């Protein structure tokens, strides 16, 4: 784990007159949230390991604008989105991968109307490609053999963009026992963070949404709750902590599971 990660920026590549294969869009959570930073690092480790030439934007990246737009603030959305598109187009970025389904959705579905056209994939899709192509080989009998894992579909990867199978295929490779919650895939229940809820107090109600979801997960007595979104990661982790189960139930992003399994 002591190996220094090799993470370069688009500016580094441009200075050498080179282009990376893919841009890793880190997002605000992946950049600043202590827990989500670990996912960013895990994902970079995998990219380093398989030898994909990638870059990040570093300080030239801004929020995609998803929470501002969904809160209703189109001005702030347009400002940050158009700034990002300027930067991306300046570097002639063609392919983007991101570990955040909200960034994924906005880059993929909303930037085209503003003049930003890119081939955008979510990191679970890239991970599946790498596994299918034999570039990631799972260590047999790894850390997770036989463990009970339940997978929480994020709304913006799942129901909104229809990606249900790629993350599940990655989990299958881990030799785990995948147990599904009743509300999964198209019927998946939100973690409660979307639509800019992450940035405000809940409206008055009987229960927090993440508790509703974690209660459902706990019924399955999982060892691990797997997620694909930094906001789901926060919400699910908070839920597990509120149940005082943080010693028994781990919440991990798929990239972290691969890194741990293969001891990267």
């Amino acid at each position, binding site marked *: 784990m002591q190996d220094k990660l090799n993470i370069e920026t688009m500016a580094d590549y441009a200075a050498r007159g080179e282009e990376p294969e893919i841009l890793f869009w880190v997002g605000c959570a992946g950049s600043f949230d202590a827990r989500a930073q670990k996912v960013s690092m895990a994902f970079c480790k995998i990219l380093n390991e398989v030898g994909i030439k990638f870059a*990040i934007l570093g*300080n030239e990246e801004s929020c995609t604008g998803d929470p501002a737009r969904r809160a209703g603030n189109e001005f702030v959305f347009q*400002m940050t989105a158009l700034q990002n598109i300027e930067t991306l187009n300046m570097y002639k970025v063609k392919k983007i991968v991101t570990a955040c389904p909200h960034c994924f959705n906005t880059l993929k579905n909303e930037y085209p109307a503003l003049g930003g056209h890119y081939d955008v994939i979510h990191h679970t899709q890239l991970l599946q490609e790498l596994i299918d192509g034999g570039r990631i080989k799972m260590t047999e009998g790894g850390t997770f053999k036989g463990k009970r894992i339940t997978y929480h579909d994020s709304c913006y990867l799942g129901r909104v963009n229809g990606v249900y199978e790629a993350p599940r295929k990655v989990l299958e490779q881990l030799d785990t026992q995948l147990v599904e919650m009743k509300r999964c895939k198209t019927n998946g229940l939100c973690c409660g963070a979307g639509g800019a809820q992450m940035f405000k107090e809940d*409206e008055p109600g009987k229960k927090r949404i993440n508790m509703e979801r974690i209660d459902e997960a706990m019924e399955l007595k999982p060892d691990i709750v797997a997620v694909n979104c930094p906001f789901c990661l926060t919400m699910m982790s908070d839920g597990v902590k509120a149940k005082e189960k943080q010693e028994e139930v781990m919440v991990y992003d798929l990239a972290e599971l691969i890194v741990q399994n293969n001891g990267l």
Partner: protein
Amino acid sequence: MVGQIVFTLLVLLTFYIAFRKYTVIWRNVNLGKDEEIKGDIGERIKNVLLIAFGQKKMFKRFIPALFHFFIYAAFLLTQIELIEIFVDGFFGQHRFFRSGLGGFYTFLISFIEILSVLAFVATFVFLARRNLLKIPRFHMDEMTGWPKLDGNLILYGEFILLVCIFTMNGADEVLHQQQGLGSYNFAVSSGLGPMLFGGMSESSLHILERAGWWGHILMVFAFIIYLPFSKHLHILLAFPNVYFSKLTPRGEMTNMPEIMNEVKGMMGLIEMDESAMDSGEELPKFGASDVTDLSWKNILDAYTCTECGRCSSVCPANITGKKLSPRKVMMDVRDRADEIGGHLDANNLDSVKEEEKEKATTLTKENFDDGKSLFDYISNEEIHACTTCNACVEACPVMINPMDIILQLRRHEILDLAAGPSDWTPMFTSIENSGAVWQVPDDRDKWTKS
């Protein structure tokens, strides 16, 4: 002969009343703004076939879908029989198509009869689901008073209709046999008729047959008139509503070009049209505060809604006890459209905008202002609770999108009223000032250097 005249007059009256009421709904839908519906016609037709005709999304919940399908199939096929009833009614005939169609006629009526039995069972199941079983989505706050009664009335109507069909066919069967003409051989009434009416006198049977026939057609007329007052309108509007539903990616919020262009101008990406900016034009209205700001498709959605509540039963906010119920949003939009429509029909000049009150002689969509808005129906608390998870959009069997309306209301609240949850202000400011959702002192790539 008297029968024919009464029938013809009733048909004319029914269609006159219905035409007037359906015109009102058409006008109410058009209270919304124009919106060009883009996309491939082939895909739209495919959606109509699969989702509207095929009931694909209904079958996400198998048991209600199955019983609903019985009623739906019986309803669709009964239309064939209805054609005969109209022909018989206008021309004083009896089973006009029977001689021409022969064995196929027997098959057709038998098929309709079997479906009608299934629909009969389904009617009872649905009455039980609504009134005896504690199915939460039928007992939410918005489902009291008229919406609750409306749901039951249509089922009572269906029950009467089906009783009439079997009385008609059953009595006719016995009459037919008594007249020495043998059995009609219809699947259900050939057995049910003799069982219920066997041994009755010819005159009683004749009265029963006529009562069934008239009862049936009167119920049909009542349905035609009742529909536009009822949530039950979905049986008609589901088809256009699915056809016009959006084909663009679900995750794409409608772009606001006027804001995009202004920001592009500020950033120096495009030439700003200075003259347009300084001409003191009224600021455009952003988002929606009333149904007249919504798209016509949003209002069509509202009139299509049959209040099944599948949206609310999967809404994470609703499940956890928040005030938001996507179904209520749709009902509110419809009720507000009805309210504005009512003012327009009454030409209520009290509802003319203050500044135009002097000269206005007609109340129009353009000069309308009754001092109310959609926010009198839908509270801020409701729209603030949405997580934009799209579960309601996914759940709707007829492709209604409540979330789109919620987001337009949010846009109005933030952009025009500069209101909204105060918790959001730091997030907006951070994005604007530092390009991150949180105010963080660190460099964005600090994590790469640890």
